[in-house]
């Protein structure tokens, strides 16, 4: 069964500095990978996805993520953090060939705190 790990409960970064939020995954085949962001009292907002092709994918609000098959990672990055980026970030994986019929599995989330 597919799974996702987000090793950091919280990431702290100063505004203007680059940020990285880590994610590793486990699937039996080639994964579909996603990042979502959640603001307080809101649902999850889709940021970006990796399906196939270029390992560096760009998404909303200046975020990007790098797919690394050998390290089974899909870390979220942004070159210059904003205070408004402070939120809860979730990595998710889908195994398109798995028996779970493309079940979408989420990690436990990483809280990003950007200080002024």
């Amino acid at each position, binding site marked *: 069964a597919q799974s996702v790990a987000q090793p950091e409960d919280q990431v702290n970064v100063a505004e203007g500095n680059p940020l990285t939020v880590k994610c590793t995954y486990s699937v039996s085949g080639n994964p*579909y990978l*996603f990042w*979502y962001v959640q603001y307080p*009292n*809101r*649902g*999850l*907002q*889709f940021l970006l*996805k990796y*399906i196939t092709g270029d390992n560096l994918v760009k998404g909303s609000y200046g975020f990007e993520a790098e797919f690394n098959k050998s390290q089974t990672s899909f870390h979220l990055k942004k070159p210059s953090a904003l205070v408004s980026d402070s939120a809860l970030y*979730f990595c998710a994986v*889908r195994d398109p060939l798995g028996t*779970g*019929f*493309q*079940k*979408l*599995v*989420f*990690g*436990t*989330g990483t809280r990003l705190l950007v200080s002024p």
Partner: protein
Amino acid sequence: EAGVAQSPRYKIIEKRQSVAFWCNPISGHATLYWYQQILGQGPKLLIQFQNNGVVDDSQLPKDRFSAERLKGVDSTLKIQPAKLEDSAVYLCASSPNTEAFFGQGTRLTVV
């Protein structure tokens, strides 16, 4: 394009009572999910529909939870009877093929 609509936004009930949540997915999306998100945790899949058929309900507590998706469009999730540990946000999402789009969720408090 209209997003995923959920109602109600908030619900407070006493334990052992019943409650129902409603979801209207994005038009044309064949896949519909219900997730449970307990405070401080990631969303946990309860049930997944493909059109009006269930494709995964392995983590749905079937003794108290039920869900249906009539005509492959709207869906309802019911809890009967509710327990204190059911306090959570219930998220509905729909997907056309790859990524899923989420509603704002229903926050359930069981007292």
